[in-house]
């Protein structure tokens, strides 16, 4: 579905991504983990067209999207749930969701109410709060709203940037369970997370970024068993003396 080869990108003269190659196949949850500043968010922003790649290829469903304007990319089926949710605080929950459906093609527009219902089913709390202003929601609810809004466009790929940021552990668990459910419903998820343990626990595969480079790519369970990854990102090392 998504295939990236030798991607280079950065800010001004600062080269953040160095020769990144990665892919996401349909129906997978792929996690990108790494420390702060490793280039995780830059990678997502480059795929989303918010940052222009200086070189390399980004193929999405067979099309090179590396030169597409950011505004066109959601229409191709690749949507992002940004870090810090960025919901429209002064709009209602329902309006936020409906806004997410604007990228739908005309024939899907008539599905709008059905899609809305589906989001309410995925996130029952949003149904309860549907007439409330988004700004009044808790952090976890806003995260759900941001996810629901992204799903309203029936995307082929959902990219999530740090969905666990600033959330209580119990809420993080809920959010990650919903991501697992999304996969079960046939969605494809590219997940960027500092919470490597939680992300790898639900992902199929993972990439570890270090200073803008992929240092290892492997099935998620292998990354969890990798001692380097454990030491650097899982905050533990079982050393039986």
């Amino acid at each position, binding site marked *: 579905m998504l295939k990236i*080869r030798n991607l280079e990108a950065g800010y001004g003269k600062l080269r953040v991504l160095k020769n990144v190659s990665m892919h996401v196949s349909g129906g997978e949850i792929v996690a990108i983990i790494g420390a702060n500043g490793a280039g995780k968010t830059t990678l997502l922003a480059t795929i989303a067209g918010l940052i222009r790649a200086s070189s390399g290829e980004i193929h999405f469903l067979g099309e090179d999207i590396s030169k597409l304007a950011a505004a066109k990319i959601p229409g191709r089926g690749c949507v992002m749930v940004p870090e810090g949710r960025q919901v429209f605080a002064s709009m209602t929950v329902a309006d936020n969701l409906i806004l997410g459906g604007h990228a739908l093609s005309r024939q899907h527009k008539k599905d709008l109410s059905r899609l809305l219902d589906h989001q309410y089913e995925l996130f029952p709390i949003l149904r309860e709060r549907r007439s409330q202003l988004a700004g009044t929601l808790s952090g976890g609810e806003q995260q759900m709203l941001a996810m629901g809004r992204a799903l309203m466009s029936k995307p082929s790929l959902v990219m999530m940037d740090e969905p666990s940021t600033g959330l209580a552990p119990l809420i993080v668990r809920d959010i990650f369970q919903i991501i697992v459910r999304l996969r079960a419903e046939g969605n494809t998820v590219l997940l960027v997370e500092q919470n490597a343990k939680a992300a790898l626990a639900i992902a199929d595969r993972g990439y570890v970024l270090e200073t803008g480079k992929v240092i290892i790519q492997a099935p998620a369970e292998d990354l969890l068993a990798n001692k380097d990854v454990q030491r650097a990102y899982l905050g533990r090392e079982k050393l039986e003396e």
Partner: protein
Amino acid sequence: MYWQKQFECMRREDLEQLQLERLQATLYRLGTHVPFYRRKLREAKVDYEAITSLEALRSLPFTTKEDLHGNYPYGLFAVPLRDVVRIHSSSGNAGMTTVVGYSKNDIKNWSDLVARILRSAGVTALDVVQIAYDYGIFTGGLGLHYGAERLGASVIPISSGNIKRQIRIMRDFKTTALICTPSHALKLADVMMDTGVNSSELSLKYGVFGAEPWSETMRREIADRLGIIATDNYGLSEVMGPGIAGECRECNGLHINEDHFLVEVLDTATLEPVPPGEVGELVITTLTKEAFPVIRYRTRDLTRLLPGACPCGRTLARMSRILGRSDDMLIIRGVNIFPAQIQAVLADIDGTEPSYLIVVDRENHEDKLTVMVEVTEALFSDQIRKQWALAASIQERLVTDLGIQVQVKLVEEKTLERIDSKGRKVIDNRTF
């Protein structure tokens, strides 16, 4: 039919993407974790970060057995020793031993890759698998054992030795799959004949053979005499061990596990790729190994890549059985022996460097290694007892260093040049 179908039947385009991702990550880890490779890449003026295609692999330097010797024991490990859960090694004199390590993930991947090969040979979780490789520091026994267990088969770790007992167990335990060297399989058939055991008394269905050169003639003989499907598989400890490539039941070449190993077939003189389908030296780059990755390891094994798709459905490339060596290594009963190892032992004896001749024969499907040593004046003694003691001590040293049985024959000066006027150091009389 398949063990990991998503990889064994991968579209070429997807496989190449996966290979590139893994190659780039491997190079990064080697370049940052292993000083030897960092130096080597710098000397070759190669920026590993600039490897943006599979073809660019060709700009990287080779890794040789000498590099492994030179970094004995742990110099090429890419993870700290505390992350290593298994260590294997080749036999050999000091300075000629190679040591390889495996992380937990390496063992898991290795097991899966061996399971693939067993599965493609026909073996399933319902089979009773008898492994008659030597269990120990060589990769053959444990490598296949873990793969067979991973597959879920019932594994009999019979190891080597006591052939009659092997046959009895094979019959009584209703072994359905035999794993050993092809010559051992024929040896078993011989002893069965001698002891009046008919292959119809056995439950054998599959034979998965490797670790030494063999031929289609041998395959037919084994298949006929044991009543099995006999398949070939390939591996070497420097790269991983068994599990690198193996035949499916089409018996038309060995599928290479390309999602874990990138292979090249190179002209031994120019070290450039041979034209498609021609014979050259197999060079392997590991793509997933954590503890002991290698880039462009020169296996010295000669093979060729086979064209066309395989009816089994696997998209993995196929290579021919090993057609020879590009160095002087001998494989005796599955054990790798270099003439230089023998020379080193002889040079050690009283500091003399006697002339020698290595003769390899195959008698009753068993390899025999004889080392003929010319007795120079320095070594000569008129006491026969002393001469015997000398032969015995050479033999003991050779057996210790090589890890296999060796015959030592002392001969008079000038004998060897009469036996072989060309001055060869090795005469291999075996036909496969």
